[in-house]
């Protein structure tokens, strides 16, 4: 990289948020059965920030991060990730976007049951069009080490504890060095202490690697690990200052 483009990137970093959601609305269904799950939501996140998204059940959290991660197309509004307009992409483009630029951590880890922890990481590494096996193998081992899973690397998910599985899922989300990490209730299947550990780990990885992360959670206690808190109620998104507990909790 030349100094010139590095400087440009720097300008971009400070001048323009990596993720920008503008007036996004998502309506499911049509006519009188239509449900507006997200209404006119806007948010922007700077590179390196880890934000949490709070809200009661059915308020639209999953719908919002699904649109941000390219799993759903908004009914109206725009979503930009870096220099790519996610909201304008075709299904096929969205598939490569998710493989290359987004890391997901699901509520239940959803690891491939017949692949070992290490192979689960290598699998996602094989998804982008140009991938390098050697680099991937090295990175998988590094990540597993960092997540404290080195000696569990060759176990299939069935042989791992719930916390270990979620850690593998975090490794998998980081594997392709994504710009954005989206996490939907990562602690739902874990007890409090374990959940806290997992979120701490997530926050650490996002910070250390300069990633951008959005975590959906019901659990107010997890908010302390994030830089910004957004709150959603009946599809309406607001930024919370983090001092007053959000409604519904």
């Amino acid at each position: 990289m030349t100094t010139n483009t590095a400087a440009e990137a720097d300008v971009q970093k400070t001048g323009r948020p990596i993720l920008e959601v503008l007036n996004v609305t998502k309506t499911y269904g049509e006519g009188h059965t239509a449900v507006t799950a997200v209404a006119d939501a806007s948010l922007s996140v700077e590179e390196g920030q880890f934000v949490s998204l709070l809200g009661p059940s059915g308020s639209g959290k999953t719908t919002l991060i699904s649109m941000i991660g390219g799993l759903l197309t908004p009914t109206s509004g725009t979503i930009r990730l870096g220099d790519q307009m996610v909201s304008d992409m075709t299904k096929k483009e969205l598939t490569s976007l998710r493989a290359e630029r987004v890391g997901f951590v699901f509520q239940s880890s959803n690891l491939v049951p017949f692949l070992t922890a290490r192979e689960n990481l290598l699998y996602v590494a094989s998804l982008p069009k140009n991938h390098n096996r050697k680099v991937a193998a090295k990175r998988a081992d590094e990540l597993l080490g960092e997540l404290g899973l080195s000696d569990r690397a060759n176990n299939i998910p069935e042989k791992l504890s719930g916390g270990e599985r979620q850690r593998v899922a975090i490794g998998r989300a980081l594997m392709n060095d994504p710009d954005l990490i989206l996490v939907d209730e990562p602690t739902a299947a874990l007890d409090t202490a374990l959940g806290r550990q997992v979120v701490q780990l997530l926050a650490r990885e996002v910070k250390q690697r300069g990633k951008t992360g959005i975590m959906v959670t019901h659990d107010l206690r997890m908010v302390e690990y994030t830089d910004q808190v957004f709150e959603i109620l009946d599809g309406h998104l607001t930024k919370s200052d983090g001092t007053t507990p959000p409604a519904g909790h």
Partner: protein
Amino acid sequence: MMLAFAEIRRARGRFISIIGALALITFLVLTLSALSDGLFYGSTGAYRSSNANGYAFSSDAEGSLIRSRVPVTDVAKYQQIPGVTKASGVGVLLSSGTGPNGELDLAVFGIEPGGAGVPTTLTSGRLPEPGEDNAAAVDKTVVDKGAGIGSTIKVGDRAVTVVGVTQDSNYQLQPTIWTTVPTWRAMQSSVRPETRGLAPNYSAVALEFASGTTAASIPPVNGTAVLSTEEAALAIPGVKEQRSTLNSIIYTTLLVAALVVALFFALIVLEKRELFAALKALGTSTRRLANTVMTQALVASVIGVIIGIVASRILGLVLPAQVPTLFRTESLIQISIFTIVASVIGALFSLRRIARIDPATALGGALQ
């Protein structure tokens, strides 16, 4: 590929069931087809090995050598017909005889050496020469029963010495011996006293055609009907029926193979909907998931087919010789390909389901 093989390796149990089902189906189809081929080849060898292009039967015989009887004078009449290059009398007798190892069930063919209706599948020795009335060539199955070249075979009060061996030349599942017409006639009057004193006749007239002539284009001599050699083979009682019955069982079984595989993969895909949604969410294309399923179908069917082939071969080895089975490589290749194609077609049905899986359902909450 990574997913396809890892799953077969680590979730072996469920693949063993589909491989087992396909092995069983292949085994069944191969065995049925060996039986079908065995019956067909064992019944029609005398025709298929013959140098004749057609046969003239008495018109009431419906193409059966056993029922047919034509006067010897018909041979000369057929020789006159343009397009017929050779016409020779052929006699057939189903009878038991005695070989070195005891009693044999035989089909005795009386032929005119050098004429039409002579077997072309001689593997050793020679055919009897004209006028050599105490000699016969025999099918290899007769040799297998202990009557090789030089042995004596007796039918009724007539004995012949084996001078040659033919292959795949049996008639109605009976091992054949090929002798001269006078010897055949002598054997016939010895074991079938009722034929003594009849005007001299043959069972049928074997015909060789000039090129371009067909059985249908020959005007039949009065009281006879001409069939091509292929038609005559299919006119052997039971041959057509056995073949079509067994073939329809074979096709039905292959259809079952396709259904079994379709059902199996429909179940697998249903069971893995959640996983496939997550994999799609992670950026796996539908095409890659489809490849995984198709690879698994291919691998499972290839392994199943191989096991089925081995099993049917083992059965072929232990089956008693009386069961008319014939394991032909051609049928084996055909059936293997059919089974694999049927499986792949079965698996294709699950692709639509895979395409319909929505990656958005992978995230938690109300979307599921």
